[in-house]
């Protein structure tokens, strides 16, 4: 068992290299909640499940195991804020723990990458799971300094919950973990048509066939637009990228006029725990640049 209240923060690719504001917000939230966050030196891509697992499943496991080994050496569970990283690391970690033969094969190849040996001593956690279940709506309440008044369309993404037999977190047909958590922050979840479908980015499709990816995404946006939320709330930087660049694409190419701010759960929670609006980094994003969280504050402990 790894140490309590300490996480090895797995950055992945998109968060540090495209949305550092999510990295900033995550550290802020976790530290506010009393966790120690450690950097994982020499970590790399998880590697992304849709692409690298498609190319070579064996190498995908070996590369993932290398990342897991870095955290094992730190004696800390991994924290990730990305569904893709979670998908890869949680799944490989589970398979290698359960299958001795596989572990031997992977460890054999790991030797080629340096001083690494998978031992199976840590867990891989998604921030949403930590917030929703370890902290919970009951536990976050005392930490809230700002309650917002927002209507949000929630996008769970795919790999946080599925395959349910491997994740073992929540139902994939009617999950409630995010809804239950954000209610106490003041956010109302607005259901929309076909809410639980994919954003269209995964599985290497965004890189392989951008048009196909945008067709899938266009339907998603149409359904969201029907219920006119204040924000789109996601829990994955890749979905985040899709919602950001996708809205921009639809505006430029399909005559749409979307401007829904795309907010990661780390950003939302950070704001409610007192992080300044500037650090949320909406000014760096394509959508909702002028969206003002502050205007929606209904309870501001710091102001009081």
């Amino acid at each position, binding site marked *: 068992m790894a140490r309590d209240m300490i996480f090895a923060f797995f950055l992945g690719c998109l968060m540090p290299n495209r949305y550092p504001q999510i990295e900033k917000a995550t550290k802020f939230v976790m530290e506010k909640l009393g966790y120690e966050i450690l950097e994982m030196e020499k970590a790399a891509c998880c590697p992304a499940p849709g692409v690298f697992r498609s190319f070579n499943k064996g190498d995908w496991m070996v590369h993932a195991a290398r990342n897991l080994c870095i955290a094992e050496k730190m004696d800390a569970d991994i924290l990730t804020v990305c569904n893709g990283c979670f998908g890869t690391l949680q799944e490989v970690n589970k398979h290698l723990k359960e299958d001795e033969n596989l572990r031997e094969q992977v460890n054999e190849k790991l030797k080629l990458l340096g001083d690494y040996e998978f031992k199976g001593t840590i867990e891989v956690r998604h921030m949403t799971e930590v917030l929703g279940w370890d902290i919970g709506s009951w536990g976050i309440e005392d930490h809230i300094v700002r309650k917002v008044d927002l209507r949000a369309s929630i996008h769970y993404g795919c790999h946080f919950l599925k395959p349910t037999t491997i994740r073992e977190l929540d*139902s*994939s*047909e*009617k999950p409630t973990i995010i809804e239950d958590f954000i209610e106490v922050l003041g956010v109302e979840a607005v*259901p*929309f*048509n*076909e809410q639980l479908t994919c954003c269209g980015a995964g599985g290497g499709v965004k890189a392989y066939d951008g048009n196909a990816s945008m067709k899938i995404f266009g339907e998603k946006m149409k359904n969201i637009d*029907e*219920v006119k939320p204040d924000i789109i709330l996601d829990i994955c930087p890749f979905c985040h990228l899709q919602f950001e660049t996708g809205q921009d694409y639809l505006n430029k190419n399909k005559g749409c006029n979307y401007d829904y701010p795309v907010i990661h759960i780390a950003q939302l929670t950070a704001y409610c725990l007192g992080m300044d609006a500037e650090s949320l980094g909406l000014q760096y994003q394509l959508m909702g640049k002028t969206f003002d969280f502050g205007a929606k504050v209904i309870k501001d402990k710091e102001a009081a």
Partner: protein
Amino acid sequence: MTVKDEKIKNSELAEGSQEKMGFPEDEPRIGVYVCHCGHNIAGTVDVAEVAESASNLPNVVEAKHYMFMCSKPGVQLLKDDIKEKGVNRTVVASCSKNQHGRTFARTIEEMGLNKHLHQQVNVREFCSWVHKKDKDKATEKAKKLVEAGVNRARKLEEVETKKIRTTKAALVIGAGIAGLRATYDIAELGIPVYLIERNSTIGGHMTRLNKTFPTNECPQCSISPLTNGVANHPLVELYTNAQIKSVEGSMGNYEIEVEIKPRYVKDNCTSCGECEANCPVEVPSEWDKGMSTRGAIYKAYPQAIPATYVRSKKDCIECNTCINICPVQAVDFSQEPETKTFKVGSIVVAAGYEEYDPTEIDAYHYGQEGYDDIITQLQLERMLGPTSMTGSEVMRPSDGKIPKKVVMIQCVGSRNEQVGNKYCTGVCCKFATKNAGLVKDMYPDADVTICYIDMRTPGLNFEEYYKAAQEKGVRYIRGRPSEILKDPISGDLSVIVEDTLSQTPLKLKADLVVLSAAMVPPEGIGPLGSKLKILRSKEGFFKEFHIKMNPTASSKGGIYLAGTIQGPKDISETVAHAGNAAALAAQPLVKGYIEKEMLIPYIDYDLCMDCGMCITACNPAAISMNEDGRPDVNEVACKSCGICMPACPTGAIQLLNFRDDQLLDEIVPIAGGGVVCNE
């Protein structure tokens, strides 16, 4: 009347018999007979060589080979050798014991030998059929198998057959169509039947149905002669609100305790209905699958038998209105539960099935808030039925409107490994076709669609029935829906399915979705099974003795299975199944006794440590601790399976003719050496 019948007639129905038990005093004189079975055996095995080799074995006085041992001249060989050569044990090397073992055993019995002194050796399935390509080795193997058989024959003991008197009465559990059929058939043979039913009325699921396929008949009309016939039969005692408490005994003689819950309404009830009309309580009707409500005092449905009203204590608020209003003072809250004990010879289990509850299939949202317009086929039956709340119209539960688009989904809880049901219920294709056709008849302009994986309509009249529905305009789509979506804005439901035949993903608007839910084992089957001590199949139903040749016997002698408690069935199949169960249950009761070979284990109490491992291992529960705290074998209940032997840590318990030393002797030649036991 045959000679054999004559023998039985004249024989004493006694607990003991004149037959000897144990090892005969005469020196073993063994006859060995190798069968050619045409080319089946002789084509591969050198039968002459096998016979020749057997003739050199100790105690073998005759060794022959013959074309067809099971033929009349073949059997005659045994007879002649017993008579002329003094052969007193036989070994036939031919087919399996199941196939012809009994033929030869019967033959030596006719010649005055105990039938257990015959040893069957299977050189066909175990030898010639599996080693066709290597005749030499096959012959060698056959020799060893025969030697093993001779070794075994040398030590065979005589086993007696006992006749055990049976109690001339039967118990039937469950008064649905299967239980009613079995009850009536047994009672008509002059055997008293105790029929017990868990619910307050009899008739089961069939009374809920609107029509039955393939003739669209009224099920009430079909079943009421039987319900009335049973309820009024002089040899039938009917107990409703009754459940099994305990079961003791074994085949032929059971003692069952039954708990009967009170109705709180006396038999002088005239069924006038004043009590329910004035009852302030309103709860969903179980019988109506929640499609209407009932009072705390109620009658499940107008034609219910018994017609006496019943009070649900759990729902009652004890306002006493019914007590005061009853014109004949039939309501009596002071009634107490009653326990009765019945002695019977046979038990028929007809506990029926339950409709699968689809709530666990999240993607279909059945039973979830806001998804009222997703119902099951039984609920649709209740809407269509003559006594329905909707006046037999199909109405959407959410707003009472008549749906213009009805989508039925097949295989809900069937053929679905995710919910643990691998099996095909086998009835749903037919009842969905029936209901779709009926809805189409009533509302010709409505779109009625059935989404299916495979249409399964085997048997006479069913393919025709399917075609008739197609001609009415029922739309069949080959594809299993992935989910039922609800538009959060309009509230409209749609069914997502691929039409696999045209490879088109479809989003079908649906005003009403009907789920063709599987048939699953009824609630309470677990406790009932452990009281009866009968096995269940992995699907959860009670397991039949043999799927082909004995589909109504349970794993325990004297307990029979009728209808859907053994697995999904339609009404015709249920009735036929129940009739067979009744015939089997009645056999020992009509005859008055059962014959039982005393091929049972004996316990060496010097070696026995009273650990009870044999008791735990014994499936038919034939071993129990006696008053002295020592294990005792119930020779009637024992099934001669021998599982007690390996369970015993000291070898104290030994099954007759399967004793350790007998089996060792048999193994020695096959294992290629060792010492034959001398004691």
